[in-house]
């Protein structure tokens, strides 16, 4: 095991960035059996009140996990994660998952980091804000 990097309040996580559209969503639908018209058909997206079809909240959820896993490393653990899906990931968006450390607790050699995490579109509008707790080893 390599030594764990030090972590401090204010640290920003390496962003996880994806160009999004049917190529991402169809792959995710195929593994999660999530073939819902609003995620597959622009007409269905428009009927639901949005300009195009839009991606699964569950895929943004995975992007937040990908962000946290890269931060925690193979030996770290995601203890808690929550987010609200506030904005649609419509077709063609660049979605970026970001995070910043808001608290660090070190007890008996175990380091636990609390973070604000979110996904945002290419204009910086937050799509899925949330919080996380990660245990680092």
């Amino acid at each position, binding site marked *: 095991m390599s030594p764990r990097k030090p972590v401090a309040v204010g640290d920003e996580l390496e962003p996880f960035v994806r160009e999004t559209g049917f190529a*991402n969503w169809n792959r995710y639908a195929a*593994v999660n059996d999530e073939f819902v018209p609003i995620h597959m058909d622009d007409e269905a997206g428009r009927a639901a009140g949005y300009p195009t079809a839009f991606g699964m*909240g569950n895929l943004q959820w995975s992007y937040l996990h990908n962000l946290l896993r890269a931060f925690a490393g193979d030996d770290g*653990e995601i203890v*808690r994660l929550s987010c*609200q899906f506030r904005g649609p990931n419509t077709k063609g968006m660049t979605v970026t998952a970001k995070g910043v450390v808001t608290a660090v607790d070190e007890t008996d050699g175990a380091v636990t980091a609390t973070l604000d995490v979110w996904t945002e579109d290419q204009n910086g509008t937050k799509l899925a804000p949330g919080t996380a707790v990660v245990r680092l080893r």
Partner: protein
Amino acid sequence: MLDNTNISPAMAGAVGAEISRTTSYPIDASDIRRWAIAVYWPQQPPVMFQVGDVAPEEFNPFAWAVAGSVAANPGAARDRNDPDNTELALGIPGPGLKFQLNGGLEVEYGTRMRAGDVITSVRRLGEYSERDGRLGLMLFSRTEDTWTNQDGELVKKTVSTLIRY
């Protein structure tokens, strides 16, 4: 409660009820690998998901097919695209709204899922609430889902919010 509400007495009375109890097939390493490829695409996923047996935390072992499932209302038609599917699974009429969206998730993780694990999910109906939104009166319903593995260890507890309008 709003004057114009979609929360019926039957719905309010069902809060806390068990919706379903579902058991997965044993997790296959190939399913873990495919999941990781999909959520990291177009980059390669971490090696641990390609050659190891550990699953990403958010992996869904219930996708496509399950080994067994008992619903509160076994006769209910199972259509996840039906916005009333939660209430129908409980044997009560749903609000009859046209659209549904994933409103959010809160998860507390326990032990990791690994290839060969058999996961059991127990879903319970949480609270209902309503508020006016851009698209009209929005119904929020919460579902609590507890997963355990074949050894009875907690895998995760999830509270999900469904938005219907």
